[in-house]
């Protein structure tokens, strides 16, 4: 690999220390039959969600989301002309960039976008596009940047929600809000909103022949219209499982959507009555 001349470089190769941890000390993954999950949730439970808009003053719109340990920051900028484009385009474009911060992952991420991040960028774009009134800004593109500061699982779903909030915060015309959620499947266990360890467990730990169903389903939807905007499946799952997990996900969407709405309402209140909270700030 050629050396990146635009950064300060360390040694040619280095290894994370985690690989030398004694295997007995490493936690033994997930017991599928246990009544409670590692963090004390039941299988259908979502983690706490914290949302905040307007966190980046330099951006047109921005949002910050926290789901358990997952922390994502997202910003949206003014529409600008699509670069290197000849001819008129009736619809505007969304440009999405999804990035893991180098320190956000169990294993250090490289600075350049890797294949996974590029794929996620594309999914993010496809999940958001149906919700944005693209015909409102022909020949222009809106840039959406999402950065994962800390990956505690379900990062893509969280990024989709943060991005949709940021778009709304930026005043980009939209048909509705986009919510997204993740289900991890292992055999007959459905883990809603999995953490990163659960995600890796669902993706990799399958002994051939013993378990048929394992994988992750991410679904983005416009719950206000009852529409699905993007669906992303990894692993091998049969159709019944998909149907069942769809039910789970739509339940989750119903829970999440009011939160996004509330958050936006708060933002609006704050804009018009900025003095309202002065009394209760100490």
């Amino acid at each position: 690999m050629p050396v990146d001349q635009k950064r300060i470089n360390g040694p040619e190769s280095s290894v994370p220390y985690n690989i030398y941890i004694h295997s007995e000390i490493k936690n033994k993954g997930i017991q599928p039959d246990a009544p409670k999950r590692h963090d004390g949730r039941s299988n259908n439970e979502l983690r706490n969600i914290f949302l905040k808009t307007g966190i980046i003053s330099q951006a047109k719109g921005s949002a910050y989301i926290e789901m358990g340990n997952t922390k994502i920051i997202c910003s949206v900028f003014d529409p600008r002309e699509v670069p290197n484009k000849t001819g008129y385009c009736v619809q505007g474009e969304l440009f999405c960039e999804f990035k893991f911060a180098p320190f956000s992952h169990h294993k250090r991420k490289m600075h350049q976008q890797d294949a996974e991040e590029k794929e996620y960028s594309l999914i993010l774009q496809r999940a958001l596009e149906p919700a944005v009134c693209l015909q409102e800004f022909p020949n222009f593109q809106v840039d959406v940047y999402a950065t994962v500061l800390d990956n505690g699982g379900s990062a893509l779903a969280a990024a989709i929600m943060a991005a949709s909030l940021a778009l709304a915060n930026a005043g980009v015309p939209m048909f509705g809000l986009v919510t997204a959620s993740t289900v991890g499947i292992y055999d007959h266990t459905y883990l809603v909103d999995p953490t990163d360890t659960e995600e890796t467990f669902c993706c990799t730990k399958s002994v051939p022949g013993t378990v048929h169903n394992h994988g992750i389903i991410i679904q983005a939807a416009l719950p206000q219209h009852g529409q699905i905007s993007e669906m992303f499946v990894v692993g091998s799952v049969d159709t019944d499982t998909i149907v069942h997990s769809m039910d789970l996900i739509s339940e989750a969407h119903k829970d999440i959507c009011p939160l996004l709405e509330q958050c936006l309402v708060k933002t609006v209140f704050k804009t018009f009555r900025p003095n309202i909270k002065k009394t209760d700030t100490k």
Partner: protein
Amino acid sequence: MREVPLTNCERNFVNKCIEEETRLDGRRLLQPRPVKIYFGSKWGCCMVSLGHTKAIAQVSCDIRQPKTFRPNEGTIYINVELAPLAAQHFESGRQSEAAILISRQLEKCFKDSKCVDLESLCIVADKKVWSLRIDINIINHDGNLIDCASIAVLAALMHFHRPDVTSTGEEIIIHPASEKDFLPLTLFHYPVCVSFITFENGNTIMDPTYIEERVGVAELTLGMNSYRELCSLHFDYLTKTMTVEDVISAVSNHAANYATKLVQDIKEAVAKDVQSRYKKDDSDTSRFKESIQTNKITTMISDHISIKLQKWDETMIEDHAEIENNNKSCIIKHEEGSAELISVFDDSINKEESFNSTYDSDSDNQCLELSNPEKKHIIIDLVDDSD
């Protein structure tokens, strides 16, 4: 910036000159420009000028792991840099096609012809070998970059001395110059490149200048060593319209003679500089300073300047201690490993604003508390709730 196109006037003029067997700078067709070599104070650094074309070469070395298929050989890497300094149409940053072409030709000439004894660069087989890196920077482009670069590479390689190492099984010790004298590289033979350009009328010239390179229709570069052996050959039609008669046989003899003479000159120059270094004699070497001619109107040579400075007087500085320190501030600690510094102004308006912008109260948060409704969230800006 794009290269300025050549005018028809210039083209016709150059073509006509060549037809009449004269050249713009008054040379004969097969006469090269004068070569000057200056060495720097470090080993393996030299500046070569071939007429107005100027190049700087520097050889450096470090210890690396060898390639797996050649475990007992050192490595050579040749890098040619065509910066905008040489000519404005070169771009900095990425390697242009021209730079790749030159470095490939040099690689053929020096690396593939095995002129450097790579086995002597091995320290511990399969573990540690010397890796040579030759950087060639062109500083002025007046045609025939390849010849100039090859002279610079050869001179730099002959001049270069590497530190001595001792291997004690596991560890290796690199000796600084004060402990053990540096060692020169072993060269098996001494190749240089000689270039020719053929014109529309069939005349071939040696050592073309920039304008001649642009008018010519075919170029030929021969890598020759002092034993009249061919190390590399590059032939290219610059325009697709002409067929050129057999130039190679016509000029190769001349090239070989010139190469022998050139290598002899380089050897002498290197030997002179190296000898004077061994004698620790600074008077008679072609250092960079020597490239500046004393009598020219555009040059200036000065000697050490001795200066008497006024003593620095501490009282000169006005006392700035009276900087008004009225920005009182207080530190607020929050539970989750965070703290804030907030200025307390006398001005009440400012106070409210500053509070509002930095501190958002808990009422901003919306928490979906399915699992643990009792848990209280204290969230300040970006705060974690991990533990």
